[in-house]
């Protein structure tokens, strides 16, 4: 193994939170997908209908299955296929708490530029998640 013997406090804190977020996200994804595949909860789009739809562009797919772009899917969260998206959202979001958690370390050590960079990265991910940039809010 090659590497530093003890990670810096910022790296250690980031790594600890990232491991929790990633493992939780992957476990959630696997469980919810299992529920979806087994048909334990009704999906919004029936399994049998998917082969007729997945060759279409995403915009046409949404129109045909009557789903809105952006966060519109949350209105149909009771369906198994939509519920599975929760696991994906957790993975796409799990870097944010890690970034926020290391900001106080950079502030305390006077590294204001790194503090600002973390804040900007959180803002970039939040902006992407909001859907405003991709016209899907």
């Amino acid at each position, binding site marked *: 193994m*090659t*590497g*530093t*013997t003890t*990670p810096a406090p*910022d*790296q*250690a804190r980031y*790594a*600890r939170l*990232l*491991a929790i977020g*990633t493992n939780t996200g*992957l476990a959630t*994804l*696997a469980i919810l*997908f299992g529920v*979806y*595949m087994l048909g334990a909860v009704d999906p919004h789009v029936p*399994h*049998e209908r*998917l*082969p007729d739809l*997945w*060759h*279409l*562009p*995403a*915009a046409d*797919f*949404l129109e045909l299955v009557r789903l809105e*772009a*952006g*966060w519109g*899917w949350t209105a149909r969260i009771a369906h198994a296929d939509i519920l*599975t*998206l929760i*696991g*994906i959202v957790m*993975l*796409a*979001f*799990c*870097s944010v708490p890690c970034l926020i958690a*290391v900001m106080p370390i950079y502030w305390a050590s006077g590294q204001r*530029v*790194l503090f600002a*960079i973390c804040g*900007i*990265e959180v803002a*970039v*991910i939040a*902006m*992407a*998640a909001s*859907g405003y*940039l*991709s016209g*899907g*809010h």
Partner: protein
Amino acid sequence: MRRLAVLAAAAAVLAFAPEAATAADAAAAQAGSGADLPWWAWPLILFVVCFFLGIVAVPAGVGGGVLFVPIVGGFFPFHLDFVRGAGLLVALASALSAGPALLQSGLASLRLALPLAVVASASSILGAMIGFALPTSAVQVALGGTILAIVVLMAVAKRSEYPEVREPDAISVALGMNGVLVEAGTGRQIPWQVHRTPAGLAVFFVIGILAGMFGLGAGWANLPALNLLMGAPLKISAGTSSFILSLVDSSAAWVYLNKGAVLPMIAVPSVIGMMLGAKIGAKLLRVLPAAAVRKLVLALLAFAGLRALLKGLGVWP
């Protein structure tokens, strides 16, 4: 003799991937959108193909995402929007899983990664938006061209274990983009620093656009940019490259989610198959002849890139 047997096993594994892809292609051609097969058949085939791609990706030193998009996009009945969305999640899940260990061991540097990741994250959103704005055929052609360029880059790019950085630039000094690498066995401590940070930021802007547009993991570009351009040691470059993907792909993934281009039936079997395969691949790392596997994977990638190019041009629909 043992080496020959191992090489034969590696070739068999690799031979299966294109064969499975060709079988998928034939089935797709026969079934059109795949509607003639039961609904569960395609996710199952996808899982098996991704499992084998995951096995060969590790010894070949190629990211799963870069293999996934051209191969699945070229030989499965799914629209490229859903393939790019799934490819991005494959790359994101792999990068997130590797991240904690890389940071704890010091093989990824948070301070080196953060400034580059901010730029690439923002541009990956732009890239994803461009990808959705362009006609599918144009994205296919650009994807094919990019994959073929990646093959050339991977085949010819040199690597430097410990690049010489005589003087770090002012930005890298201000941001603390440096560290100490401890060598295994000898315990020797090797201080490292980087230079040409402005050029690195510009390159990562372009890398972010490509990652967002095609849903490719961008390790193929991150690694040479960190190692050859900025002068980070090879191991730090490899670890940090993977970690940067976890941030860049997070941003782009949201665009795909908002556009409805993440279909769980395609994305989840791909992620699980690729991650399980990568675990097996990591275990086989010591027995598989990495150089031979890499050559075979590059040949497979070139074939998939050519397929994407010809599909986009309407020559091989």
